[in-house]
């Protein structure tokens, strides 16, 4: 096995830069999550961490182990792919739940339900 001390200085700098970018984006995202006030604003902040936050850390990892093992190590890219394609599922679930609650409470801040939307349409889908 290779050790981190074997990493040449130039490669260590590249890896460190990518790690700092990724960690920084995740930190800013979490900070925004804490700082923003409305639910709909808050769902935007963590996407910093799930997009280029993840991507930069994944790139740092690929670069680090590719240099250390002197062969391409790219399986980390799967992490990026799966994080990217699964994020919308959670986000839509949370977003639609919040929208449903706000609409049923009659909140003026969210757009009203479309006439063709809602109970009627969902009823049709259940019958299928």
């Amino acid at each position, binding site marked *: 096995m290779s050790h981190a001390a074997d990493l040449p200085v130039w490669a260590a700098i590249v890896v460190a830069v990518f790690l700092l970018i990724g960690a920084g984006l995740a930190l800013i995202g979490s900070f925004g999550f804490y700082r923003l006030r409305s639910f709909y604003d808050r769902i935007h902040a963590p*996407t*910093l961490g799930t*997009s280029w936050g993840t991507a930069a850390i994944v790139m740092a990892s690929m670069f680090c182990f590719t240099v250390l093992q002197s062969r391409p190590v790219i399986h980390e890219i799967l992490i990026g792919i799966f994080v990217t394609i699964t*994020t919308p599922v959670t986000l839509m679930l949370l977003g639609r739940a919040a929208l449903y609650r706000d609409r049923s409470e009659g909140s003026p801040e969210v757009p009203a339900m479309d006439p063709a939307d809602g109970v009627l*349409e969902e009823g049709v889908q259940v019958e299928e």
Partner: protein
Amino acid sequence: MISRIFPYPLLIASLVVMWMLLAGFTPGQLLVGIGVALVAAQGLAALQPAKPRLRRWDLLPKLVIIVLYDIVRSNIAVARIILEGSKRERKSGFLTIPLDLRDPTALAILAVILTSTPGTAWLDYNSARGTLLLHVFDLVDEAEWFDLIKNRYEHMLLEIFE
């Protein structure tokens, strides 16, 4: 006959590549990976999902590059807004966009694009009317976002899928 054994060529190829990325690039793992992929493809075929038809393969890399570039740009924009805090006037809001896109796969890809781009969140899609409800973090100019989604993403997805 070929399509019975290989019902989803793209899925099979991706699964084999994924298997070998995780297990190692050896002939033995290639065989195991192909076996797993074929069984998985049969499983998917049993569910009979709608088969996406790709008309323009050549445009996919262009779409990926555009999206990666936009994600970098909006990462910087959203990070700046969060760090600036309340110093700057910011208005976030909802945006309803009528879509011409109907293909479920294309809509799923659009959802992934909009969700992975910080600053836009896909909230609701009305399949009867084909309207999409978005939440935009920095809604300064509605027309600009409208243009971005209709002309930049939807236009390309329509070309690729329909």
